[in-house]
């Protein structure tokens, strides 16, 4: 029997000051299937993120409302851009 999406590990990539605060460029979560729940989970697990603004990209697109994803999705945490 196949594992359900909820119990599969989901890989998340982080950048800039967010990567610094969580202590690495990659993290793994489990049992989370939307961006709202992900924000909640991150806030609990990484108090260092408190007060820092970041966006979430799902499959390389910024998402502005709550958005579902699965373990095939590419999830990224993006602090405010500062290129150029």
């Amino acid at each position: 029997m196949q594992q359900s999406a909820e119990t599969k590990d989901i890989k998340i990539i982080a950048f800039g000051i967010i990567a610094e605060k969580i202590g690495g460029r990659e993290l793994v979560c489990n049992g989370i299937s939307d961006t709202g729940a992900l924000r909640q989970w991150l806030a609990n697990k990484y108090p260092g993120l408190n007060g820092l603004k970041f966006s979430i990209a799902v499959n390389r697109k910024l998402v502005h409302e709550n958005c579902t994803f699965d373990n095939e999705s590419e999830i990224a945490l993006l602090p405010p851009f500062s290129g150029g």
Partner: protein
Amino acid sequence: MSHKPKNIFVSGAVSPALIADSIQKHSTKTDIGGHSIFLGQVRADEKNGGMVQAIEYTAYEEMAVQKAFEIREEIFVKYQLTCLHIHHSLGEVKAGEVCLFVFTSSPHRKAAIDACAELVERIKNELPIWGREIISAEKYEWKENK
């Protein structure tokens, strides 16, 4: 004008030689009447604890390249352009060195100038790139675009 995403990143500073080479290559395109170029240069800003020595750039490269391609296509629809090139640094760029090179060309100057100005704003606002300002071996600040 190519219609697939193209890498925009260069390792370290954008050299004046790369810029000269890019200009030279356009001499065969004799329908061009005007080029507009923007160069971003790293400033040695005064910070608490010292001056900015360099900026270290990182990016979500796959997303940045895809987004740069979307912006490129939109700018080509909006302005009558012959060419459009974007080069952005990754890694360390010292104060005084160039970290961004945007290059637009058109038969007429207005399209090249307006497209270049709009591109620079969109690159700063929409590409997932981050700069960390290095002040000393121990001290740095994450840059924020205004």
